[in-house]
């Protein structure tokens, strides 16, 4: 090894703490890049391979009833290659612990090999004949259901004792949620069970007929055309939904999840890499400045600029090699872990394609090189200017400048000597001040971000389920009923409020965009909804026309006053143009809202309702469960519980993000403090000579950093809040919108956490101060 490299190695050893701190920041950056990117690509590949392997459908159709022998006529539609009829229906089910939930019953044909969405058997076997059931594994796992267990299910008022014969997964339900509003899986309360076709037909009263179709087409390009044709052809069978696989709920959620993961892979790593580069530039700039004389001597010995630039850049190349190698290594581990977590916890996918993508490794290496070497060269650029003759000259005395506070005489006179030292040092170098303040601001913003996510989710649920929707129970009937049903229900439970509602899917079209959404019909003076616009001004459902949720309007580019084509799936009813009279602030899901009378007249039949909203303290669930026309009963309490369960998973990613922020904050504070201490050795020595104790000196350093931290947080607040507003905007999807008021508390907690990081970094520098050799500093003439 050359002696120059040896010197470098010893310098690194001497500044090992700083070195490790920056390397950690690089590791986080590269790890999150490689990890996220690979995980997301693998996830995408996995899901599509899974769908391929299980013959996933291209088009999904829900209808009222279609005779089995009518299916063959659909083959006339150009491009359709396969059709599979099913019976699909939701039933209420109480699990062994007495927890009420909903099961989606789906029939499967006997010939599994040729089935669309054929099932993946995780345990047991495919059902044979009557009374066998296959349970989706998410539900089985959450409810402790095993092969051979009995399940008593009620279908159309009749109880069947079914035996669990298989635990399965289906590519139709990769993300198992009940509907758009649910958003988060609640595996204890919602699951899918699969019954043999003929048995399901008999039990639900669909002899030789179906209410649901899966369709395969020849060519992806044809799907939209076929969907249109099917909508028309199937109208007489009461088709309520004809959707392309792209619009299917599970697919959409999966896609959204992957999209967000990819976004993270594109942003998070760069925040850390840029921060690391900034730290490296500062470190090397300082080292070069302190080594000015050594550089002069090396030049006097005959070393040239290139050799010296390489020498100092090697310092950061080392960081790059360590950070890059470990980052890539951990990134690969984490990629596997991430993808596994997704397929096992968020999604239900029985396989995982663990491809290794060399391009991300290369990209990771490339990024490390760019950031580390770039920072190294940039930081050491001053070497060029150092003249060999400088080695001959003793240090030029530092230019003592008075800070502006000193000019405020009256103030300055009353400040204690220690505080004068603190203040002088803070304002000593503008660059250092800016670097530290920006660094802390960044740490602060990164800390606030996960807090925001956490609080925002909470807030969104709270807003949606207590401010926007106010019902205790949301009851859906199995089929539309006469309004008189309301009185039946009133007869069996004590309600403080009850209203009939219509909730029915329609396809809305605006320009070239279309979307299937549930339009909800409510009384104009409903007590169950609190419609407000973005500025919190109250809105009312119009006599004619409709309100639309804001997120949906944004995605489709709809404004108040636009007329949308509402395509109905109700037989013998025509499509209609309806004006949007207002945009409703709705944090979860996307809907349109109409006056129920108008809706009945325009789209449905008079006096028909599809469900009721109830406020009651009775045990509504158990009472209504027995009514045979009741399909699902959603209680707000259940929704909230499900949400809280989900938050547990959330804690992990939030803690991780906060730890990352902490490492960054640590690296920034620790490194700049050490640098500053080294620079001030002489000053500290003089203070020691003047009788200051080491602790007193340390205290001035601590005060200084606390003041800088407060500055940093002050700058961080607007940075973070504009960042969060941007993120809220960016994360607004058709499923949820984060247009919430950012709670002030997170700024406070973010500040506390940031200060804790700073204190930890500070304590880490304490030992360093104690080891500073003051005597050496005074007599020091070595470099």
């Amino acid at each position, binding site marked *: 090894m050359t*002696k120059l490299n040896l010197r470098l190695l010893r310098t690194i050893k*001497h500044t090992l703490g700083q070195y490790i701190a920056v390397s950690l920041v690089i590791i986080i950056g590269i790890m999150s890049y490689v990890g996220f990117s690979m995980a997301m690509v693998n996830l995408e590949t996995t899901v599509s391979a899974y769908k391929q392997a299980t013959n996933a459908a291209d088009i999904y159709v829900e209808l009222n009833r279609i005779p089995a022998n009518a299916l063959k006529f659909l083959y006339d539609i150009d491009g359709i290659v396969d059709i599979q009829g099913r019976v699909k229906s939701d039933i209420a089910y109480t699990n062994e612990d007495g927890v009420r939930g909903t099961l989606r019953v789906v029939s499967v044909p006997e010939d599994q090999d040729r089935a669309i969405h054929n099932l993946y058997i995780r345990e047991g076997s495919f059902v044979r004949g009557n009374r066998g059931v296959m349970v989706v594994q998410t539900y089985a796992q959450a409810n402790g259901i095993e092969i051979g267990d009995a399940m008593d299910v009620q279908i159309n008022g009749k109880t069947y004792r079914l035996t669990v014969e298989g635990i399965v997964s289906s590519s139709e339900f990769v993300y198992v949620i009940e509907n758009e509003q649910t958003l988060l899986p609640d595996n204890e309360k919602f699951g899918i069970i699969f019954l043999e076709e003929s048995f399901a037909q008999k039990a639900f009263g669909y002899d030789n007929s179906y209410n649901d179709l899966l369709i395969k087409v020849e060519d992806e390009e044809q799907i939209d055309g076929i969907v249109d044709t099917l909508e028309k052809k199937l109208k007489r069978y009461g088709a309520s939904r004809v959707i392309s696989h792209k619009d299917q709920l599970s697919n959409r959620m999966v896609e959204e999840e992957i999209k967000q993961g990819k976004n993270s892979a594109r942003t998070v790593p760069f925040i850390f890499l840029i921060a690391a580069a900034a730290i490296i530039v500062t470190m090397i700039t300082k080292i070069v400045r302190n080594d000015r004389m050594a550089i002069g*001597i090396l*030049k006097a010995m005959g070393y040239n600029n290139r050799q010296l630039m390489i020498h100092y850049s090697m310092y950061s190349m080392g960081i790059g090699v360590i950070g890059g190698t470990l980052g890539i290594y951990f990134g690969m581990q984490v990629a596997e872990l991430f993808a596994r977590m997704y397929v096992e916890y968020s999604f239900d996918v029985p396989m995982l394609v663990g491809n290794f993508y060399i391009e991300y490794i290369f990209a990771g290496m490339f990024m490390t090189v760019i950031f580390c070497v770039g920072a190294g060269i940039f930081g050491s650029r001053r070497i060029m200017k150092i003249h060999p003759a400088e080695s*001959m*000259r*003793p240090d030029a005395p530092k230019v003592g400048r008075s800070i502006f506070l000193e000019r405020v005489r009256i103030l300055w006179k009353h400040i204690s000597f220690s505080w004068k030292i603190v203040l002088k040092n803070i304002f000593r170098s503008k660059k250092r001040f800016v670097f530290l303040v920006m660094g802390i601001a960044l740490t602060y913003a990164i800390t606030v971000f996960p807090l925001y996510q956490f609080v925002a989710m909470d807030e969104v649920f709270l807003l949606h389920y207590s401010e926007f929707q106010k019902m205790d129970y949301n009851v859906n009937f199995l089929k539309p009923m006469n309004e008189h049903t309301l009185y039946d229900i009133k007869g069996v439970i004590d309600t403080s409020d009850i209203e009939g509602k219509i909730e029915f899917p329609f396809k809305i079209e605006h320009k070239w965009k279309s979307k299937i959404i549930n339009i909800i019909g409510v009384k104009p003076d409903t007590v169950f909804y609190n419609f407000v616009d973005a500025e919190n001004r109250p809105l009312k459902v119009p006599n004619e026309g409709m309100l639309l949720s804001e997120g949906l309007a944004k995605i489709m580019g709809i404004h108040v006053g636009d007329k949308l084509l509402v395509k109905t799936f109700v037989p013998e009813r025509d499509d209609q143009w309806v004006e949007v009279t207002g945009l409703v602030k709705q944090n979860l899901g996307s809907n349109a809202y109409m006056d129920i009378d108008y809706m009945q007249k325009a789209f449905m039949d008079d006096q028909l309702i599809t469900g009721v909203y109830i406020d009651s303290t009775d045990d509504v669930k158990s009472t209504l469960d027995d009514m045979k026309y009741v399909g699902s009963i959603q209680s707000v309490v259940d929704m909230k519980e499900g949400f809280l369960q989900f938050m547990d998973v959330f804690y992990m990613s939030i803690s991780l993000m906060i730890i990352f922020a902490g490492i960054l904050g640590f690296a920034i504070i620790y490194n700049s403090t050490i640098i500053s201490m080294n620079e001030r050795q002489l000053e500290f020595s003089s203070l020691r000579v003047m009788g200051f104790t080491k602790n007193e000196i340390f205290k001035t350093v601590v005060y200084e950093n606390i003041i800088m931290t407060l500055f940093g947080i002050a700058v961080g607040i607007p940075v973070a809040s504009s960042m969060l507003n941007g993120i809220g905007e960016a994360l607004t999807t058709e499923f949820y919108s984060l247009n919430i008021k950012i709670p002030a508390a997170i700024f406070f907690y973010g500040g506390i956490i940031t200060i804790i990081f700073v204190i930890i970094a500070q304590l880490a520098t304490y030992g360093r101060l104690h080891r500073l050799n003051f005597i050496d500093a005074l007599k020091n003439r070595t470099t």
Partner: protein
Amino acid sequence: MASNNFVRVEAVKKIYKMGEVNVHALNDVSFEITEGEFVVILGPSGSGKSTLLNIVGGMDLPSEGRVFVMGNEITEYDERALTLYRRNTVGFVFQFYNLMSNLTARENVELATEICKDALDIDEVMSAVGLGDRSGHFPSQMSGGEQQRVAIARAVAKNPDILLCDEPTGALDFQTGVTILDLLSRINKDYNKTVIVITHNAAIAQMADRVVKMRSGKVIDNYVNAHPVATERIEW
């Protein structure tokens, strides 16, 4: 055969611009040095000695005038040629030793020899400067005199043609200073190196083969000392 214009300085001027003021650090300096001489440049502080040495050492360029070393005009050299010149032809010894603190004595010497063409045997040089047994020590573990010996070893081991020393005893006590001068004189004799020593201490001139006296950027005297005195016999 000793050439009598081993180093030739011709009408060198050096002007530092300090804002409005021009500092004439060197004002028309000319002299010659013969190969193998032990030269002492004598002059009060601020007289331009270091400036002159820097120019002869290829670390700085004159504002006017020319410098020839072994027949080559170094004042014509570009950055690259100057670097090679510093690497192979000259060795420097500084007043404050200026060793790398995190390298041992021996490593400090190697730092210099690693990049030059035909370095001397390091062990030999280390014993020549009397530090054969201290090679593994770090600068902080050595006294000022010892550090300066390391610095001399560092300059000599490169096997340069000229050794340039800027006040090598300036930071040392008298007794140590004498031993350092003695060492330089031995190197001059044993290794047959041309040595130029800067000092403001007139007594040192007694040991020189040639004395160049400076004042206010000018050479006021330049003579060959017919009877150089051995270091231990210098009268202080």
